[in-house]
């Protein structure tokens, strides 16, 4: 039992040696001729400008979440379709039950899509504030 842990210890030591060893060897071997050009941040060859601490637009996250609805749908439907072929061979009722379940799943996702659409998650240019925002900012402690 304890001997098994020796493998892990050897593995840990090797990991450390590999990571820090390569860094150390690189430091010893490489030439060092820094220029202002070389010291700048790499931004795909462009000269960098501005601070890197900019805020991303929150809309990207909205779009990503909506994308997930479709993505998850496809991922979850593939295995079902593969199994359906087997089900069809066993019994027709079984296949219909499975199709019904999948249909329910799709309906749930469609409701999610309608929700996102209705709430304006699909509009890139959105009306700035809801009419209720005044009430909302007036917030008791």
């Amino acid at each position, binding site marked *: 039992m304890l001997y098994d842990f020796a493998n892990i210890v050897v593995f840990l030591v090797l990991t450390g040696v590999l990571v820090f060893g390569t860094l150390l060897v690189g430091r010893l071997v490489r030439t060092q001729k820094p220029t202002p050009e070389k010291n700048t941040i790499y931004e795909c060859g462009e000269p960098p400008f501005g601070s890197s601490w900019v805020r991303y637009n929150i809309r990207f996250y909205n779009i990503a979440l909506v994308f997930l609805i479709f993505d998850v749908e496809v991922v979850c439907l593939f295995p079902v379709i593969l199994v359906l072929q087997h*089900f069809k061979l066993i019994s027709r009722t079984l296949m219909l039950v499975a199709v019904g379940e999948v249909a329910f799943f799709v309906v*749930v996702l469609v*409701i999610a899509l309608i929700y996102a659409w209705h709430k304006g998650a699909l509009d890139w240019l959105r009306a700035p504030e809801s009419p209720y925002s005044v009430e*909302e900012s007036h917030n*008791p402690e």
Partner: protein
Amino acid sequence: MQWTSGIIEQLPRDLSTIAPEIALVITILALILIDLLMRGEVSFSISFFAIIGVFISLHLLFNAFYNPAPSRTAFWGLLAVDKFTLFLKLIFLLSTFLVILLTLQSNLIYPYRVGEYYTLLLTATMAMCFLVSARNFILFYLALETLSISSYVLATYTKRDVFSTEAGLKYLIYGAAASAVMLFGISYLYGLTGTLDITAWVNVLTPVTSLTVLLALLLVFVGIAFKISAVPFHFWAPDVYQGAPTPITAYLSVASKIAGFGALFRVSLPLFTDLIIPGSKKILLMLGPYHFQFATFFWIISVITMTFGNLVALRQNNLKRLLAYSSIAHAGYILMGMTVLDAAALKAMLFYFLIYMFMNIGAFYCAIVLENKTRIGDITHYKGIVNEYPYLVVGFGVILFSLTGIPPFGGFIGKYLLFAAVVNKALSTPHAMFYFSLAIIGVLNSVISLYYYVRILKIMVLESPAKKIGVPWTPVESLLIAIFVIAIFYLFVLWTQPYVLIENVVKSIIV
């Protein structure tokens, strides 16, 4: 394709065992659509539909309770459908109903965005129902995450409020860390047992692998301890409880916490030795040497949790923060039952859940009323409030004394049963001092807690008021406070009725 045989016959029966959850899911979908179709002021109608959904679910639950399913598992062993699970689901649905009532009274939930609010609330409830019935780690984790993610959003529901935003962010970060640790533990258990069965760890608890199994269980416990806010995984609780909208705080402190305990029971069910019939001597034989180690572990967690919660609560001035520490302390009291690990303790814990639900949601209801009247959460501003709102202070007094565990209130029975279980165990094992010391620490903690509960009442009753508040008292408030007070007295006077039910429930999980 062997499992497909008999699927057609089995499916309707299995689906009928999760009828309460199906009702909740349909309610959730309906709520989203109603919210989208109706414009303008929908607050009342949405709450109305949510309450109807909860009641249909409760009705189906009672149906299942009185017509028990022939098998105790459904969906090829994925779900447990015994009465024990149904009892926990009953507590979740009742507390959801009470939280909806609280929401209707709270000024913090804006009337035009309630569609999402109730959707998330019922989603969390549905996830809890699956969490306590899961017998498979994948479903267990899925339910836990559904519950957590809904709670994160609910905690930050009043998004323009900086405290609420802080609460949601802290909850999310702590929750993600805890659930990652738990997932790591689950992966160990899966590696050791080769199955995702939630209690399969018993079979690999041999002297050779015990260290790894215990470590993996500890990691799984981290995720559960986060939900029940046991020290040292409680750091999120005070900030989240203070910042979240108060009905959600009540929900997190009651339903979410009890769901955590339900999950703990599911994983640790083989530890309750007298729930195992003599036929399966194998489990007892395997657990034998380790049983006391588990008890010691829970002893330490329980003592730290209750002592820490009570000592820190002494210095709190914000009412919701104080109740947060008090609910940490209550998690410690309930964990005393996990030290004893027998059927009596399980019954005591289940009874404690019942009374704790009414006490704690009641306490947060009083916090909501005080918030609505004064717009301040600091208890030093409630001086002499008894002159203006006598019903509130009397009702709050009953709830606070019940939380302390003083005789004429229901909290006493809850604590009495827990302490009785501990002392009984002490009298029947060689480790008498181990259990006696736990009981003594528990009693001392109750004494400490009396101070900070009564301090609130002292400020409200004995000190002279600064100025009149002038917000009128409404009959609905009297009615709601009466519900909680009556429930607390009912559970003191007629405690045997629910206790008989609980005995029945515990009998149903003897394996």
